[in-house]
């Protein structure tokens, strides 16, 4: 990915015209970027507890097709959701590079952990909140319900997902 480090030029952050991402040491939050098919998605890195390889999961009776099952994560039963099926993007294959991103956060005041299958994990981005472009104009896709906004990363566009909405994806 075409990422340029520019610490001196902080005032450019938030400028819609620039075509590179500023990695600053100041404010802003870090996002983990992963791919689904040809698309790039970002998720707040603070909610990512771990990234692991994909192994089989125990099937869950009568679950929707995007719930691949549950796995044993150090004694906890954690459901695994295939985001490619949920968002209807990319091809659903499971090569060796397939990874599971485990997210956890509070849903209704209770800690909840869910794993998400993605094609690959690519990068960590620093993002200023104000450079996030509004997502209100999206339409059609399932993913729109889980989106915070989109952001430019070099030549690519990264869709930023809302952790809390993702965690309550199956309820």
């Amino acid at each position, binding site marked *: 990915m075409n990422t340029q480090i520019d610490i001196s030029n902080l005032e450019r952050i938030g400028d819609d015209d620039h075509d590179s991402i500023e990695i600053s040491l100041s404010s802003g939050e870090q996002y983990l970027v992963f791919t689904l098919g040809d698309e790039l998605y970002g998720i707040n890195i603070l909610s990512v507890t771990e990234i692991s390889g994909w192994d089989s*999961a*125990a*099937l*869950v*009776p*009568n*679950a929707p097709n995007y719930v691949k*099952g*549950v*796995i*044993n994560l150090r*004694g*906890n*039963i*954690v*459901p695994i959701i295939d985001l490619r099926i949920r968002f209807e993007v990319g091809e659903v294959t499971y090569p060796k590079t397939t990874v599971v991103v485990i997210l956890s956060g509070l849903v209704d005041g*209770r800690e*909840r*952990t*869910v794993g998400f299958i993605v094609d690959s994990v690519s990068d960590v981005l620093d993002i200023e909140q104000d450079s996030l472009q509004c997502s209100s104009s999206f339409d059609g896709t399932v993913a729109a319900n889980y989106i915070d906004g989109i952001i430019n990363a070099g030549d690519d566009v990264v869709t930023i997902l809302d952790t809390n909405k993702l965690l309550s994806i*199956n*309820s």
Partner: protein
Amino acid sequence: MSIDLEEFHQIFFEESLENIDVVEQALIDIDLESPFDAELINSIFRAAHSIKGGSGTFGFTEVTNFTHLMEALLDEVRDGHRTLTPELVDALLKSCDCLRNWFASLQAKEALDTEISKPIAKIYQTMLNVDSSAGVSDTPVEPAGARIDADSASQDSVITDNHKTWLIEFIPDNEILLSGNEPVRLFRQLQQMGEYSVTVNTNKLPNIKSLVVDECYLAWTIQLQTDHQKQEIEEIFEWVADECRLTITDISNCSDQQLEESVEPVQESNNESVKIIQADKLTEIKHTTKRALPSSSIRVGIDKIDNLINLVGELVITQSMLSELGSNFDMSKIDKLSNGLEQLLQNTKELQENVMGIRMLPISFSFNRFPRMTRDLSEQTGKKIDLIINGESTELDKTVMEKISDPLVHLVRNAIDHGIEFPKERLAVGKSENGTIKLDAYHKGGSIVVEIADDGRGINCDAISQKALEKQLISSTEGMTDSQIFELIFEPGFSTVETVSDISGRGVGMDVVKKNIKSLGGRIEIESEEGKGTVFKVHLPLTLAILDGQLIRVGTEICIIPLISIVESLQIKQEMIKKVSGNMNVYRLRDENIPIISVGKEFGLSSSADNFDDQLLVIVDGDDCKVGLLVDDLLAQQQVVIKSLEANYKKIEGVSSATILGDGSVAMIIDIPGLLSMSAKRSISSNKHVA
């Protein structure tokens, strides 16, 4: 300015309920004929006093007023001015019920039902009024000690038509806040007494760095103009008396000017003091929210904890031995290795047992309510009952205990109401006048058995079968064994007693009892002999955290059926499968037609059509009938640890929870009643589809 008292409320409720139990237990232990037992009275008094104090602190005035009456009477008993009469014991027992009811309402944040306390309060009032004629005031808030001090107090108040000015110097100890006392609350109470002004003395306040948030550095001087007596003011400070220096002086005779002088600075600093208090409180609030308590707690004996620590110590030793062995291993040490592994197995097993033990409570928690209940019921019914309790120290999982309490109560009530005969009847059949109810709890083969036995009239098989025929629960009694007939009393809507009594007999009880016990993974047995008595045996699992399971294979998945619900497993004989009533498969097993449910189909795990050839049938006990579950393979039987699915996912129909198998993979534990109702729903909806 208010603090979130919620968590303190919770602790107070728990403690108060415990105190009520103490009172009740002591009241029942009191033998009215034997000489006066000061220790028992004291323990009752202490418990009542704690409830009164706590409720006063939290502002539950109804509770305070009511317990105050109890306390006043108990105080007289304690001092020997009053003898403990049966009426008083009765009234006190009723008060316990009333208080329990109130605490339940308080916990649910509902309004208190003050009606229930009125008759009891009236009894107390009359008892108090009869004995101590002059000194007792009408206001129930006045403490018991009031009467003793009354003389000196009245002398004080005679001087100037009761209206006086008091100068109160209140210098609390540093630790006063730690004991849960709150000066502001005291002041608020003073404020209600009359005209009041306060100055704060901040001299002792250290600089901010050395300030400890939960210590109190302030002192106050309060001027109070009031009609109330000195000892009423003292009463407000009663709870903090040990933790402060308090001087109360009468300054009514001082000149107005003096008064004004002292009042003026007061008002200026008034705001300031409040601010300081506020700041103080804010830090305290932060402090307390961090320590937020979980919703329920458990008390564990220190010996259990010590045991755990010992075991963990052993485990660490074994681990270090094994890792040393592993670091330079050769085949000559294979014996040592297998020894070490064996030791590890032993350690883990013991550790598991002990950890489970933490959740265990002696069953006396549940049994303790029965003496009181039997006493009440024997009064109500006029039956004479001896209660014998054995095995009180048998331990049971806390959750199981909570869920089993109500069914046990029902069974005991039933035994008294239906089982035990009236004294006359008993004498007529040559039994002793007093009926006996025996409660027993013991371990038996990995489960706990709770026995409720009575020596009453026993269960009349004919009456039951007659009733069952009447209610069309069965079509004929032919070929039914006695125990099968006994089972009928667990049918919904079954009750043999002609008149519906207050105690039992609405016919809603026994089926609920059975359901509750079943939902815990237990079962209930009846043994009865007419004329001799009945024994109910409730079998309960030791814990809800582990269950004995039968591993089965469905398609590619491994599932678990709780062993307790399995009746038998068998190889399918193709010719025994019949199709009935519209494509429903039943299996003919010894003249019984058992509906077949394919687990794979219900769960959407395998699509194999009606090919029964390589499949096995597991006959399970459903809610009220046997059902055959079609599975691909039977695997091992083992104990499995129950893991929640709902924590991270959601409730799945037909699955109660999950577990982790030896190889680290996850397996679903099948919820048999859930699976059956799911299957029933499916067939209904598919029928609708056809229609």
